[in-house]
């Protein structure tokens, strides 16, 4: 196999957003991680810089679940930031990820979300690449009757598809533009990899999927997921039925660089006495009751007794265990003020019929129509609108202190600060 090389479309990726020293991309407030300047949600130059410094930088990007491409030739398209990519299983069984773009003039190669193919034949001028990304044939390479065609010294081996690094952990296929980021397991660290193994470390089955479009900068949604503080307050459904209250045993854990996090709780260890919950002061304790409680039936899926576990993998992947509702989510920016959240709803290959029925009922809790989580689809846009004209104002993030570290209890924004710590490091601001 030739080492597929890029045709120069990506090479010398100059940083379009680099501003002069006198005009830096962003000046972070003096308070440090205790503030989030509103500019990060609205500035097109920052959104551009994220494409190069973040999504094409030293991180791993989730592309798909490996079960989506079981056979040689099976492919699944997606995007890394704004860049279309395709994951495909070769005839040798190896999963490769390519930029989904012909090396001739840039036409997209795979237009469908998924499928199976013997090779990559470009629809525009019929150049053909094998599943390893090498250019195999060029229509009319020698021209017709001596007229036209490519120069004799044209070297097809220099015009393969742009191939990315690939690493697979559990069910998840990751790819990276970076030659230097360590392998996924190492990049995650031991504790974060532990939960990936815990949720998707055995054969999974995809049992649902959809995309949720939100009218806010992608980082407002990621902050929301990392904000353990809001979960027991904004979402009444959770608190009223004791699914996830801030008074339960739990913790927020952040990774060493700050960007990955775990937030977990154990619903069978709740202590509301002497909290604002038991005073009945909070909106989220307002009385109401379900007629049919089957939605709340669950079994304790893990010996560790953790019934609610949300993990983020920096910068834009979420692994969800809400009782027996399991999902993987990928957040993709669409400019400064829109983003899409791709959901894979999963179960395990060896689920019993009864377990599957429980997962189906609990699926009502999550997603765009989720009784628990539908608020998360709109809260970001409610914030976004207020930040537009005040780029130099800032959000306050001091719950649980002003620094980044794992904390017992979840009345904390440490996960949010952790995200911004790693984001600033990657973005150089």
């Amino acid at each position, binding site marked *: 196999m030739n080492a597929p090389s890029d045709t120069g479309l990506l090479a010398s990726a100059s940083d379009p957003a680099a501003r002069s020293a006198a005009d830096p991309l962003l000046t972070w407030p003096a308070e440090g991680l205790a503030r989030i300047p509103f500019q990060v949600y609205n500035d097109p130059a920052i959104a551009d810089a994220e494409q190069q410094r973040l999504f094409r930088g030293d991180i791993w990007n989730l592309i798909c679940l490996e079960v989506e491409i079981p056979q040689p030739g099976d492919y699944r398209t997606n995007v890394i930031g704004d860049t279309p990519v395709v994951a495909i299983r070769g005839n040798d069984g190896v999963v490769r990820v390519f930029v989904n773009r012909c090396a001739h003039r840039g036409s997209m190669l795979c237009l469908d979300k998924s499928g199976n193919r013997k090779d990559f034949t470009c629809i525009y001028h019929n150049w053909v690449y094998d599943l390893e990304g090498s250019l195999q044939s060029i229509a009319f390479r020698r021209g017709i009757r001596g007229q036209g065609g490519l120069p004799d010294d044209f070297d097809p081996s220099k015009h393969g598809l742009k191939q990315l690094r690939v690493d697979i952990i559990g069910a998840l296929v990751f790819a990276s533009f970076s030659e230097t980021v360590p392998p996924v397991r190492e990049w995650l660290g031991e504790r974060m990899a532990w939960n990936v193994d815990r949720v998707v470390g055995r054969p999974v089955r*995809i*049992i*649902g*999927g*959809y*995309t*949720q*479009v*939100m*009218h806010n900068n992608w980082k407002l949604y990621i902050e929301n997921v990392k904000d353990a503080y809001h979960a027991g307050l*904004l979402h*009444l*459904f959770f608190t*009223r039925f004791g699914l996830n209250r801030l008074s339960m045993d739990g913790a927020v854990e952040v990774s060493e660089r700050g960007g990955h996090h775990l937030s977990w709780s154990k619903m069978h260890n709740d202590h509301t006495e002497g909290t604002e919950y038991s005073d009945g002061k909070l909106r989220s304790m*307002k009385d*109401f009751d*379900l*007629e*049919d409680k*089957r*939605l709340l039936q669950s079994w304790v899926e893990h010996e560790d007794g953790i019934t609610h576990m949300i993990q983020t993998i920096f910068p834009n992947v979420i692994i969800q265990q809400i009782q027996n509702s399991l999902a993987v989510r990928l957040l993709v920016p669409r400019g400064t003020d829109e983003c*899409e959240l791709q959901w894979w*709803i999963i179960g395990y290959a060896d689920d019993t019929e009864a377990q*599957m029925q429980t*997962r*189906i*009922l609990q*699926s*009502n809790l999550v*997603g*765009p*129509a989720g*009784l628990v989580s*539908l*608020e998360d*689809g*709109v*809260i970001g*846009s*409610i914030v976004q609108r207020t930040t537009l004209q005040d780029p130099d104002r800032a959000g306050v993030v001091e719950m649980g202190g002003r620094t980044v570290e794992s904390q017992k209890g979840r009345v904390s924004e440490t996960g949010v600060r952790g995200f911004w710590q790693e984001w600033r490091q990657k973005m150089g601001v």
Partner: protein
Amino acid sequence: MPILSKDNTHLLDPAFQQIITAAAALVADCVGAVDDERFDEWSTFFTDDCRYDITTREARLKGWPIGLMHCAGAAMLRDRIMSMRHANIFEAHHYRHMVSATRLAPGTNRAPDFASGVRVHTNFGVTRIMANGDTTFFGSGFFDDLIVATPGGLRFHERTVVLDSSQVDTLIVVPF
């Protein structure tokens, strides 16, 4: 009991027409209740042991058991309405449905009869109108309904709302 022909002649059979017209009226009344926000009435269009799902074309093609919403029984429909009114936080909005003519579901090979259930399809488009007037086309798809006769009149025993797109804007809290 109407006969079902291969050459469309049953369309002229008054007994057949009566069934289709009744089914279409039920579909129209139910979306009317949603659009007018008469949500207490909504669950009364369904049998007590009904099944109501919102899913997508893609999920149906892939055979995924999970869509966007799943209610097993009218009590869960009422719980959805209660949650919408008393628990969920969202920006005020309402829907307006545009529905097509109601047709017998493809593959129906028995003469339709409400005693044993009539399966019909009806296309819809839905606009979502926010409190400030912003109006967007929220989605299109079809209702896949099984309608049965009960002592209380015609009811939906099964309703699957099949959305054409797998992409949902922001959230779904008002039922379709």
